[in-house]
């Protein structure tokens, strides 16, 4: 009986498997890339895969497969719901006709393919208006003409209370006049956004945000199709002279409160539109206007496929993109170079670890005709962040001494495998204002070279001249400082770092266990936490527990990046309310540093020299106060199949710009 039972069970399982295998939704073959059309099965050219090796992309000059350590999630509405890096890149490639574009040199320029040179007006109230006239002939990828309404719709939709009610993060027009009132639905009119006629529109930046070197980013909007996002006829935009506003049922859409009847029509309609919008985040094909359009996203394989948008007229200089298909897929660190070697991917971008780069170099040694690479400095660094309002690190000399006790060149070489450098301030070596100021900075910045003697002298200068009994420090053991209230402050640095972090591990070797640190009379004690808990300590967030409100840690290791348009407007704020929100996590209150950091970018966009000069002064002051010790700045390496040509990438620019100019040969 048991034999029969087992046989029956196995047979059932087999049948079930076959049914499951046969009935599970097969991924459709790649559909033809026209937006608005439903892909039909078996329509694509029949290339017999049986005759192809599994490395289908190896000689394929029509597609580039981009491997990414961050998986594409199929959310095409970043950053309004989430902020995944690969999704952001994909969205950048599908977005187009922005009023301002970025050149490969990293400058913002008027996108004259989309708009005429704007009329810029400085208003009496200090605000600044950019008036744009649209050029003829722009269309979405489905052929729908683009008008001024589509640009106004972008500013309205992505700043609206409705998006917040749909659990999104409206943040498009934050510096425009009337943003807060519109975003909070205090008014239905967005005063800083104007629809002037079918081809004209304007954006007005509020007075407190001008002049600003990067102010054009506040008026850099592309078109958004309301019909696509909200459904046909759900919303339109209009302007009666006071500012643009929504018309249609979307205009009055409000999130139901707890007191509202769930059976009511309004309740149902709100949820209907909300579900529709949330669905549109992922739907393909999409109505977009960029150089590429989304063909498909496969939720099972986490792969996104883009193809050229043949209706795209080009970026600011008419560049349309040369590579027919772009495929984004997740790669695993352990096998990424095997994937490149076997043609599963064609490009591994922005690798920063020494082991990864060495593996890439090994691949090039194997076959330098088939593979190539490009390297470029990271616009950012790994750092030791000091908390400067209590304990030993409140003293500038202690911060300097710690910097002198860490051989940063050695640290950077060890961490990056020799593919990195050391910077002396908050900048990346690829930034244009650094390149133009390099000689000046080299002569003015302190590089805090390794020196025990200098460290000891600085500690003495800071008053750490006693032992635990209040006697003069005898040269061994822990140093103490007698404070104004008579208490003795030990030179113990409580260091908070994240778990499973190779930087933390290297810091243990190179700093915490460095004999010279003990010889200088310093003790460093490490505590390991996860990143979210580190944030609690950094923000002193008592809502998460009373213990976080007690200043405990003097030093944390983190990393910073400086994307194009970055300005440390609030980074060194003196305002306690802002500090409580997590601005100025170093808690270094220095009026001069704050003024320099805030003001260097408060110049007209055309004043590049003024911007650069002020930036240098900020960097010099920062370097003197040393709120952080930059540990390493990676030399990023991108490895790729040699069929990829004209691929010039820079960490300050998005990969989307490099891909627009690249070719396959």
């Amino acid at each position, binding site marked *: 009986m048991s034999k029969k039972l087992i046989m029956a069970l196995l047979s059932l399982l087999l049948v079930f498997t076959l049914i499951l295998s046969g009935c599970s939704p097969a991924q459709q*073959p790649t559909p033809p890339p026209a937006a608005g059309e439903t892909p039909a099965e078996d329509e694509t050219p029949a290339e017999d895969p049986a005759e192809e090796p*599994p490395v*289908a992309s190896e000689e394929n000059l029509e597609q580039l497969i981009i491997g990414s350590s961050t998986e594409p999630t199929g959310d095409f509405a970043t950053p309004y719901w989430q902020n995944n890096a690969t999704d952001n890149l994909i969205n950048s490639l599908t977005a187009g006709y922005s009023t301002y574009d970025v050149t490969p040199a990293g400058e913002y320029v008027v996108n004259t393919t989309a708009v005429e040179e704007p009329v810029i007006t400085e208003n009496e109230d200090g605000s600044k208006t950019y008036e744009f006239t649209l050029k003829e002939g722009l269309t979405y990828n489905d052929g729908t003409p683009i008008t001024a309404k589509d640009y106004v719709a972008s500013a309205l939709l992505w700043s609206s209370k409705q998006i917040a009610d749909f659990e999104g993060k409206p943040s498009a027009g934050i510096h425009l006049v009337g943003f807060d009132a519109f975003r909070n639905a205090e008014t239905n009119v967005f005063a800083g956004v104007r629809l002037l006629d079918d081809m004209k529109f304007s954006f007005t930046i509020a007075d407190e945000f001008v002049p600003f070197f990067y102010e054009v980013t506040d008026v850099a909007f592309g078109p958004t199709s309301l019909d696509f996002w909200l459904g046909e006829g759900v919303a339109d935009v209009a302007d009666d002279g006071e500012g643009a506003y929504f018309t249609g049922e979307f205009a009055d859409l409000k999130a139901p409160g707890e007191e509202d009847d769930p059976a009511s029509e309004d309740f149902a309609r709100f949820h209907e539109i909300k579900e529709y919008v949330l669905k549109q985040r992922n739907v393909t094909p999409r109505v977009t206007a960029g150089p590429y359009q989304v063909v498909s996203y496969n939720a099972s394989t986490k792969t996104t496929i883009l193809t050229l948008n043949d209706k795209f007229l080009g970026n600011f200089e008419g560049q349309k993109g040369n590579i027919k298909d772009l495929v984004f897929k997740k790669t695993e660190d352990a096998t990424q170079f095997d994937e490149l070697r076997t043609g599963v991917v064609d490009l591994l971008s922005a690798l920063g670890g020494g082991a990864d780069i060495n593996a890439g170099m090994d691949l090039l040694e194997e076959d330098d005709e088939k593979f190539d690479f490009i390297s470029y400095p990271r616009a950012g660094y790994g750092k030791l962040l000091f908390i400067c309002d209590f304990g030993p690190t409140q003293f500038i000399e202690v911060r300097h001494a710690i910097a002198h006790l860490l051989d940063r060149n050695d640290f950077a070489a060890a961490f990056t495998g020799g593919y990195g450098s050391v910077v002396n301030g908050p900048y990346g070596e690829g930034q244009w204002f650094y390149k133009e100021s390099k000689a000046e900075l080299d002569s003015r910045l302190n590089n805090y070279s390794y020196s025990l003697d200098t460290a000891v002298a600085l500690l003495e200068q800071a008053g750490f001249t006693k032992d635990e009994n209040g006697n003069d420090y005898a040269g061994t053991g822990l140093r103490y400082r007698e404070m104004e209230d008579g208490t003795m402050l030990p030179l113990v640095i409580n260091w908070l770092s994240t778990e499973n972090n190779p930087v933390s591990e290297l810091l243990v070797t190179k700093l915490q266990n460095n004999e010279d640190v003990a010889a200088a009379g310093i003790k460093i004690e490490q505590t390991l936490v996860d990143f*979210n808990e580190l944030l609690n300590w950094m923000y002193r*967030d008592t809502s998460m527990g009373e213990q976080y409100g007690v200043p405990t840690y003097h030093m944390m290791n983190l990393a910073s990046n400086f994307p194009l348009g970055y300005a440390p407007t*609030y980074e060194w704020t003196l305002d306690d309310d802002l500090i409580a929100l*997590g601005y100025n996590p170093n808690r270094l209150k220095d009026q001069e540093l704050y003024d320099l950091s805030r003001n260097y970018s408060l110049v007209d966009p055309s004043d590049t020299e003024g911007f650069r000069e002020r930036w240098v002064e900020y960097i010099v002051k920062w370097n003197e106060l040393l709120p952080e010790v930059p540990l390493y700045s990676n030399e990023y390496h991108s490895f790729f199949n040699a069929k990829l040509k004209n691929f010039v990438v820079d960490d300050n620019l998005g990969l989307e710009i490099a891909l627009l100019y690249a070719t396959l040969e």
Partner: protein
Amino acid sequence: MLKYVFKRILYMIFVFSVMSILLFILYNGIQGDPARAEIEPMKMKLEPAQYEQLYRETRARMGLDDPLVTRYTRWLGKTIRLDFGQSIRYQRPVIDVVKPPLQFTIKINIFAVIIGLAITIPLGIFTAVKKNSIFDKSVQVFTIIGYSIPVFITALLFMYFFAVRWRLLPLNGMETPNFKGTAAELRADQIRHLILPLIVMTVTSLASITRYVRAAMMEALSMDYIKTARAKGLKEKAVIFSHAWRNALLPVITLIIGWIMSIFSGAFIIESMFNLNGMGKLYIDSLYAKDFNVVLAVQLFYVLIALIGNLLVDLSYGVVDPRVRVNE
């Protein structure tokens, strides 16, 4: 029998409820502020007042300002309606996030279980019958090696030889990206991508069940009733399959049913190495990303599977061994 099953179901509901409370408290007790973690990347872009407003809204949306009991009852109410909330990482309903990996995991595991059982049971029986033969000793050595080598080493070896060196099979992934061809050709491509991980899954799971079946069979074959059966002049085939195997099946059945239930659970290392979107990878990635709504849903699903599996094991004893009654 029905009464027993009913009692067990009541017991399952109780255990499930207790587990749901424990898991909810555990994950909500972990230090950190998920609202802050979610909006932190936007901080540079927003003005401070807007950042603060967004932080408050996000906390309210996540229900973080409510007492734990309120949060639990709200979460349980939704969970019963199969609404597991939003994934923090994907900002999508958890059920949508879990569905593709679960489908894939079940599909590949069914193949792995069938192939595994088809190999291990006959192999275990045969090595027990041919105890101490060269074949038996060879199998013992290979199964010990199979036990000892970490899965990722086995996976790397197979990948290196079959995909990198000989280029016989795709290295990883679930299908050729941007595959151009008919639906049937795509299906063939997907099967090609499954072969290597399936081989590794099977190879790495052979050792335990083979050895378990062998041990159970050897014990059964040493019993007096086997000697009696042979003395009666029964054919060796009948002795092995009708007498020894049926008695050996009782301890093995627990393992086999456990293995069959494991079709729902993923294999993190194999899924990661082969870049497969399965449950193991989703679970671990979600844990790392502190996407606790996903983690909670997955864990409760496994609690349910484990409870059902235990019930099936108990019921199967009654089917396999008439001496066991499941009425009490």
